C-alpha cells in the first residue's frame, strides 16, 4: 500500500522508491517565499530531491513551480523556512555557490551568453576550476563527446543557433562539471517535437550516470512518464506528492492528473 500525503505541513513521500532512504540532495523545508512586500507566493512548502531519481514538479500556471525552483537555487530567499543540501541548511547561500555543491540549473527561458562562442560558453561553465587546465580540457572533451553537434559549432556564436541547439548547449553547459544534480525548468517549451523527445530521452538517462534530476514541466505527460517521484503544486502549496508507482496505481491520484496527462499527444 502506498501512502499518499495530501496537503500536510510535513509531507512525507510515498512509495518505496529506489533512493527513498538516502537523505535528499536538496530540500525545501517549510518555506514561505514572497517577491516583495507581504504577498507570499509559496506558503509552507516542503519538497525533497532524492538522489538517483528524477523528481517531477507539475501544477497549474502560477502555482509557484518556477518560484520553488528559484528558491532551491538561491535565486530567491525564503522569508521563513530552510533550503538544505544533503541535510545541511544553506538558506541564503548565493546561487553561484551551488555549483561547488555539485548542483546545476537550467532555468526557464534562455540562459546563454549569445555573443560568446559555444566553446567560451562551455569554458565559463568550468569557471569554478578554471585554473585546472587539464580538468577544463577533459570537461570540454567529455561534453563534445556527449554532444557531437556542439563540437561542430564550437566557434559559432551561441545566439546564432536554433532554439533546440541552444537548449542542448545549455544542458551541456550544466553537465560539463559533472554535477550530482541538475534542476530543469521546462526544458522543452517551444522546442520542436523531435528535439523535445530527444531531450526527454537524454534526461531519462541522467540518473544512470549518477545525476539526480529535478524537472519542472507543463508537459505533464512526459514529466510523469520519466519521473520517479512527482510533486503537484497548487497555489504555492504542495498539494500532493508520491512516487510514480503511486500515481499509476492509486486510482484517486491517477484520476487527478489523468486529465492533464491525456491532453498531450507526442509525435
Amino acid at each position: 500500500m502506498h501512502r499518499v500525503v495530501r496537503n500536510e505541513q510535513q509531507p512525507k513521500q510515498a512509495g518505496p522508491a529506489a533512493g527513498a532512504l538516502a537523505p535528499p540532495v536538496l530540500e525545501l523545508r517549510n518555506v514561505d517565499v514572497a517577491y516583495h512586500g507581504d504577498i507570499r507566493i509559496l506558503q509552507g512548502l516542503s519538497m525533497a530531491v532524492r538522489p538517483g531519481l528524477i523528481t517531477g514538479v507539475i501544477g497549474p500556471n502560477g502555482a509557484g513551480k518556477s518560484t520553488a525552483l528559484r528558491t532551491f537555487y538561491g535565486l530567491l530567499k525564503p522569508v521563513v523556512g530552510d533550503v538544505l543540501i544533503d541535510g545541511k541548511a544553506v538558506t541564503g547561500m548565493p546561487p553561484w555557490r551551488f555549483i561547488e555543491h555539485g548542483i546545476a540549473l537550467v532555468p526557464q527561458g534562455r540562459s546563454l551568453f549569445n555573443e560568446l562562442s559555444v566553446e567560451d560558453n562551455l569554458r565559463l561553465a568550468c569557471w569554478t576550476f578554471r585554473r585546472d587546465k587539464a580538468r577544463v580540457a577533459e570537461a570540454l572533451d567529455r561534453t563534445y563527446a556527449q554532444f557531437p553537434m556542439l563540437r561542430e559549432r564550437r566557434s559559432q556564436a551561441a545566439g546564432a543557433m536554433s532554439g533546440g541547439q541552444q537548449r542542448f548547449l545549455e544542458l551541456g553547459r550544466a553537465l560539463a562539471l559533472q554535477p550530482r544534480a541538475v534542476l530543469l525548468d521546462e526544458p522543452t517549451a517551444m522546442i520542436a517535437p523531435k528535439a523535445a523527445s530527444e531531450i526527454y530521452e537524454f534526461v531519462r538517462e541522467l540518473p544512470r550516470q549518477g545525476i539526480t534530476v529535478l524537472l519542472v514541466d507543463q508537459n505533464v505527460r512526459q514529466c510523469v512518464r520519466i519521473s520517479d517521484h512527482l510533486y503537484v503544486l497548487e497555489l504555492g502549496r504542495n498539494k500532493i506528492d508520491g512516487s510514480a508507482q503511486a500515481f499509476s496505481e492509486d486510482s484517486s491520484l491517477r484520476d487527478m492528473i489523468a486529465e492533464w496527462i491525456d491532453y498531450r499527444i507526442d509525435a
Partner: protein
Amino acid sequence: MEILVLNGLLNGLIVGGVYALIGLSLTLLYGVLRIVNFAHGEFVIGGAFVAYVLYNSLGIPPLLAMPLAAVFFFGLGWAGYFLLIPRLSRSDDPEIMSFLMMYGMSIALAAVMLLLFEADSRSIDYAFEPISMKVGLVYVSTARLVAFGVTLAMSAALAWFLFRTLPGKALRATIMNREAIQIVGVDVIKLSAFAFALATAIAGVSGVLVALVFPAFNPFSGTDYAIIGFIVVVLGGLGNPVGALLAGLLYGLAEQMSTVFLPQAMAQIVGFLILVTVILVRPTGILGWRAQR
C-alpha cells in the same frame, strides 16, 4: 595653415585618447553593472588631485603617481561597490536610480574635494624635460605624448583582458546575461565589485592623465568629464570597449579640428552635432549591435 591642421590632428588624437579612456571605464560600468555613473567625472578629478597631493607633498612625479592612483582608486571602488550597489538592484529601474544615486554621489564627492582643496583651480607644477618635443612641424608637449602612450597601453591591456582572458569573458558574459553567469558558478558580486573597482581605477589614472593634458582642474570640473565620457560611450555603442576607443578618438579629433576652422565658441557645437547625427543615423552607436531597452 597646415601647421594648424597638423596641430589639430595630433592634439585631437591625444585629447581623444584621454576621452576614450574615460569612456572605456564608463562603458565597462554601464555594460557590466548597468550603472549610469554620473560621478565618474569626480573620480577622474579625484585622480588629478591625488597626483597633485603626491607631487606637492611627497614630490612623486605624475608618471609614478599613476600606479599609486590606480591602487588607491581600486580600493576605493571596491569598498564603494559594497556600500552602494547591492541595494541599488532592488529598485524597479536600477538604471535610472543609479543615475540619480550617482548624481548625489557626484555632488557629495565634489563637496568633499571642495572641503579638502578649496574651489580654485589647481595644476601640477611639474614639467617633463624637455617640456615639449618637435613632432614633424609642430611642438607637442611631452606630457601629452606620455599621456598618449599610457592611454594606448591601457586600452590595449583592457581589450586583451576583456576579449582574451576568461575573467574578461566572464565580465562580458555578465553584460549578456546576468542570471546565467551566476548559474555557472561565477560569484557575480565579486565580479561586479571587481568591475566597479577596475573602472574606478581607470578613472583615477585618467585623472592623472587629465592633469597632464589639461593642466588646470578644480573640484567642479568633474561633470564636464562625465558628460564627455557619456558622449563617447553612446557614440561608440554601449558596452562596447572598442567602440568607446574609436568614439573617443573621433570626438577628440572633431573637437580639435573644428577649432582650427571655426571660431572656438562654435566648435563645441560640432562635437554635439556629430553625436546627434551619428546616433540618428545609427541609433546604436558606431559599433553598437542592437538597441537596448
